[in-house]
Each structure stands twice: as C-alpha cells, then as structure tokens.
C-alpha cells in the first residue's frame, strides 16, 4: 500500500514541479548553453568575450558589485593564467586557458592580464595623506568600478529607472541565463513613450534601450561572429559565471562525492545483508 502511495506522491510532486516551471512572463527561448548539463562547464572563450561586452557596453550603466578584478584571474575565472612548457622550444610560457595536462596556476597577484584590467580602471578612493576623495588606478583587490556612486545617482542619470546590479542577475531571474539572453535579443525596435518593447521582459516594456547592435564590440578573434546573438550569448555566459564562479568546481566535486557515496551505499547494503542473514523479519 505504502509503495503505491510513494509512487502517487512522486507523481504529484512532479506535476507540481511542472506547474511551477511554467511561469508567467515573456517569451524566452531555451538556448543550449555549455553549462546546462550536470557535467557541463563554462565555455571560457565565451566568458572572456562576455566580459568584453560587459566592460564595453553594460558597464556604463550596470554595476557588478560582488565581483572584484582578482576574481577574473582566480582558478575557474576567465583570465586564470597557467605556466606551461612549450614542447617545441622547451621554454616556459603563460597561457590563459587551463591546459589539458599539467600547467602551474599563476597566483592572481602575478597575473599580468588581471593586473592590466585592474590598472586601467579608475577607482574612487580617499587620499591617505589629505583625506580628500581622489581617483587612482585600480588594484586587483578592488571591486569592479561602479558606474554610479549610489542608486539615486543611477536613477537620476537614467530617467528614473534603476539599472540593476548584474553580479547575481542570472539566478535572480526566472529562466536564468536563457532569460538574460532572450531579454537582450527581445527588442522589437518599437517604443512606447520612454519605454522599449521587449518580447522577453515580463510586461513587455522595459526602460532599457536596445544595446547589442551588430559590430558594436570588436572581438579580437576574427572567427567569432560579431552579431547581436553572439554578443547576447557571450554576455549571458559571462553573467552566469559572475553569479556562480565555483560551478565547475562544484560539479566536479559532485561527481567524486556521488561516486564515493555509490560505493559506500553498496558496501553498506552488503553489510546490511550480512548482518541480517538468517534473521527473520
């Protein structure tokens, strides 16, 4: 009897899950991101390009307050550097993609890419000698430069609308990275007063103007198309990484843990059978 009950309970729970998944809102296309599957990691090329799109387009209005420059170069970050030995020349050289074999992680304080990104940023600080506000080059330990000092300033510069912080925007939206991508591509080109029609946005009208036009960001890699779709996919990937930088590590640990637990459960089952052998129950 209880077995039948369990099955019906599971079925009911599944039905509830489906009901929850079918939320309201605009049209969101399900894009096959590399990180969708339980074992899928980040496409680091896309995260790097997405960072470029963020820095050149989004960053003029949107902060990523939980990200520091050093995060870009920590293990699992898009600009993590490794020392590898070149097989032909025998020289040691630095690469930004995690090599297949070996490779020595370069501590983020010595990562030239991240240092350059940080130093190019202008960070507001207090002069230690005069106590007055001062601008200085960024350090890797600095949080990303914020486009506005506070929410009031942000609203004042954006006709009353507040550009939300993007560091956890992906988990903060139903649909996650799919939604972010669909939103960026959802503009129809129509306007309604000061608002813009967007097919993905709940309610259909957003205060943000369409941003990702073909060719707006110049990718260093000539093979990557410089289209709105590519920009949106890349920046959605970057924002997914920004919200969950330890995802790859978590998934990899999960495989080890589950494999371990499977072995342990098997052994415990055998031990259980052994203990109860010959006992009526």
């Amino acid at each position, binding site marked *: 009897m209880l077995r039948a009950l369990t099955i019906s309970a599971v079925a009911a729970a599944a039905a509830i899950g489906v009901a929850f998944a079918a939320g309201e809102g605009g049209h969101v296309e399900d894009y096959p991101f590399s990180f969708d599957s339980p074992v899928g990691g980040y496409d680091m090329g896309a995260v790097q390009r997405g960072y470029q799109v963020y820095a050149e387009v989004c960053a003029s209005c949107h902060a990523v307050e939980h990200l520091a420059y050093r995060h870009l170069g920590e293990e699992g970050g898009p600009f993590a550097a490794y020392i590898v030995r070149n097989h032909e020349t025998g020289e040691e050289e630095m690469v930004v993609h995690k090599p297949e074999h070996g490779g020595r992680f370069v501590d983020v304080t010595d990562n030239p890419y991240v240092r350059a990104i940080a130093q190019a940023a202008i960070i507001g600080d207090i002069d230690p000698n005069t106590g007055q506000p001062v601008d200085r080059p960024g350090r890797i330990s600095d949080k990303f430069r914020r486009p506005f000092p506070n929410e009031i300033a942000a609203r004042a510069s954006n006709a009353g609308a507040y550009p939300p912080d993007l560091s956890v925007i992906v988990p903060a939206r139903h649909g996650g990275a799919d939604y972010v991508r669909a939103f960026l591509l959802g503009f129809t080109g129509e306007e309604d007063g000061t608002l813009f029609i967007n097919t993905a946005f709940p309610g259909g009208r957003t205060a943000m103007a369409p941003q990702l036009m073909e060719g707006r960001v110049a990718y260093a890699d000539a093979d990557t198309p410089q289209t709105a779709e590519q920009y949106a996919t890349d920046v959605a990937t970057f924002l997914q990484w920004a919200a969950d930088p330890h995802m790859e590590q978590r998934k990899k640990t999960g495989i080890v843990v589950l494999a371990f637990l499977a072995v342990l459960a098997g052994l415990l089952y055998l031990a259980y059978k052994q203990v*109860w052998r010959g006992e009526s129950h």
Partner: protein
Amino acid sequence: MSGPSTYEPKSGFTRWLDKRLPILRLSHDSFVAYPTPRNLNYWWTFGSMLSLCLVVQIVSGVVLAMHYIPHIDFAFDSVQRIKRDVPYGWLIQPMHAVGASMFFLAVYVHMFRGLYYGSYKAPREVLWILGCLIYALMVVTAFLGYSLPWGQMSFWAATVITNILGALPFVGESIQVWIRGGGAIDQATLNRFYSLHYLLPFVIAGVVALHIWALHEVGQNNPTGVEVKSKADTVPFTPHATIKDLFATSLFVILFAVFMFYMPDALGHADNYIRANPLQTPPEIVPEWYLLPFYAVLRAFDFNIGPIDSKLAGVIGMFASIGVLFVLPWLDTSKVRSMRYRPIAQQCFVIFVAVCIGLGYCGGQNPGKILVPTTFSATLNWVEGGQIEQRAIAADSAGAFDDAADAAIASLPEGAALPAISRTGETIGVVRGVVGGAPQVLELSAATVDELEAKITEAKAGATAAPYFQVTRTTPFAFTVTRLSQILTAYYFLFFLVILPVLGLIETPRRVPDTIAKPVTGQAQGAS
C-alpha cells in the same frame, strides 16, 4: 523497554569510569543492546536521517556564522562573500540551504509514518507530542533562518509572517512590534532573528534527547502495531538497526548531494537573489516549499466567520493545522494501532497525504488562478442610431426613490429602449432611454474575465452610432486555487476531527495474521 543493563565494562579504565560516570553504560543500553522490533521496515529509518540532518545544519550553521554579518547593509553581501571567497564556502552555504529542505523532507516522511502506523497511540503520546514540538521548533527556526540572507523574499516573508501575529485580537499589534523591535522589519529584527536562529537548533537538540528518551522508555512501535512481547520479537539495535539505518541514510545523502551539487537553487526562489528592498514588494510572495501547505490553509479563509474576520480566521486555521497534531493521540479512538489492519482508515490516509500535497500545490499558486476551464459570458444591448430621452427623478425620501424611478421610466415615450437609472443623490437621479433606432443584441463569452472585458470594449468601439450600452455580465462559479484550498483544508481538519474519532468506533478492522498475533496469547487485541 529498559530492562536491566547488560553492559559489562571490559577494561580497567571503563570499570573505573562506570562507577563515576556511567556514560558508556548509557550509550551501550541506548544504542547497542537496545531491543528493536525485528519487523521494522525502511519507513523506520528516517529517524536516523533526521539526526544526521540536525548535525549537518548545526555544524554548517556554526561555520556560516563565522562569516555571516547580521547587518542590513552587509548581510546580503556577506552571503555572497561566503559563496565566492571563503574557502569551501561554495560548498557549505548550499549545504545549509539544501539541508533545510532535506530536513523537512525527512521529517514529513517520519510524521506520515507515525500517522499511518499509529505511533502516537498509548503509551507513545508523550513521544508523539515531543516530536510535534520538534517540528514546530523546526518551522520557527527555518523561518528565522530564511530571513538572514536579507534578499527580497527574506524581507517580505518576515514582514508577512510578523503581520500574521498582528491579526491576534487585543495583543496582536503589541506582539508584532515586540517581535520586530520596531514598526517594521529592520536592523533590530535581523539581529534578534540571527540570535534566535543560532539558539533554537540547540533547543531542538535538547527536545530530540527527550524524544529519544521517551522512545527508549516505551520502545519502538512496529508495522503491525502489536507490541513486541518477547525477546524473540526483537534484535539488538547494534548492529541490526544501525546498519540498516546507515544504508538507508547513505541513499538519503545521495539525494542530498544531487541537490547540493547540481541544483543548489532549485528549491529556493529567484527573488532572494535580489537585495531586500522595503520600498518594493516582489510580484509573488511564496514561502519555502515545506511551508506551502500551511500558507494554503492561511489563504483558504477568504470569508468572515461570525465575529472572526477572514485574516484572523486564516491565522487560527494555520496554527490549528499544526496544533491539531498535538492532540491527535486523543482524537483517534481506534483500538487498532496500525492502519495496515484498518481498511477504511487506510484509504482516508492515502487521501490525506494527497490532500497535504495538494495544499502544497495551492500554496505555491496565485490564489485567483482558475483551475477548471470556465466560460465568462456577457450580453451587450444597444440601439443603433436613436435619440436619448431623459427624465429627472425627484423622490420625497430616500425610501421612495425606487417608486419615483419607476414612475419616471413610465413617463418615457412609448417604445423607449434600454431604460437606465443613474442615481446622483439620496432622493434625486436621472432616467434615460433611447427612442427610435435599431435595437442590437450581442452575446460574448471568454475564458477569463480580462479577455471578456477586452471583447466588450472592442464591441463598444465597433458600434459608434450607439448612444450608450447595457452590459449584463453573468458571473459563473470559478473553481480557483482558493476554492480548491478550501476543500482540501476542510478535509485536512475533517480527517483529524471527524474521520479518526468516528472511524475508530465504527470500523471493523482486518484480522491480524496469526503468526503476528501468536506471541500475544491471551491478550484481547483490538485487531483480533
């Protein structure tokens, strides 16, 4: 069940210790030699899982408290810092968040098991009540903990739940302000919620000790509901029950790990990734899944009951749905303990479980959502062309208005269509009618109210030559989530307050098989 102790200290040190602090004797008698019914099934393994859950929550919680900052300006950031920068914070934070859900999953199975096998019946009333107390403490602790990340859902859940207390008559408002430490959820609230969230798990641990003590005093129930009568019916707790519990727990941990590593956010709500904003309520406020059934009960009361308004009724209903568990031992009148031998009760129990799941579904939905397709219809009358004729209504008193209006309608020209009264004061108004033109009728229907109104607006826009329209809307019975919640809530209370008390008196139980009944020779069992 605590017979004479069988503990024999083996070494000099344990003999020395046993005379001074017989803690090893206690452990041996409680967790090694303790006689366990040999016919326990896997539903009895959830107690061990719950112990594990409590340990996981306390250990991970103490660790998180080392990094969390209970301040309204830094709480949200500190949680992000834990997930990003603290060594293994990305592992420990989801462990705690998912752990809460796993804790409730296990406790619900544990409670349904107790319900089905009659584990609350004499002599286990105190054991059951202590369990209910643990559950109530868990609910409070989970609620307090959910507010700590200081996201939108944290803040608004805290606001809504403290408002619930405000519904209590006379003292409600004072209690609400007292709990919040101010007029609204703010720094004072966050600080005390943090303090209490740290304290309560240790209170739970204390009540768990009492729960286990009570269990070991009366002994475990078993699937037959027939008390074990001899040593032959039992096996020692260790290794027999220990190894079975460990195996079942390892499967539970696998489920735990799947959520923790692959779906850490699946059981949470997206809005809690948005920093708390007292100026803006999220579009929907829902509690965590494990509290959804009670939320559905709260919202099911959309009507006043005599002097009790709907808000207070909902609050009473919600508290009563937990409170009724405490008195369950005295509500069930059946002399047969296990529902395995109670065919009708068994079916009522299955419906009860479905009802609880159904309430959970309702709690997560918009209360106005229509579950059964319904047709809303309206009749639109108007006159194409034609002239408006008007007559003033002037009655002597407010009571005489209707008569005066009828008289005014009668005074309209012969054949005037669509007479309409607009009352502009106590005794005065205007009657209008349309003379001439071509009368038109249009029947409209739609699946939702909004759709119907859109169609009406559209039809009106199409008939520009009409001076005015008369719309007759029919309001059908709409089977909404609230209606379903009301039916399910009714069954929930019916099950405890009517079915169990009455069924126990009238139901004819199945016969307990002889092989089980035998050890209890001479005992007049209700089941035999």
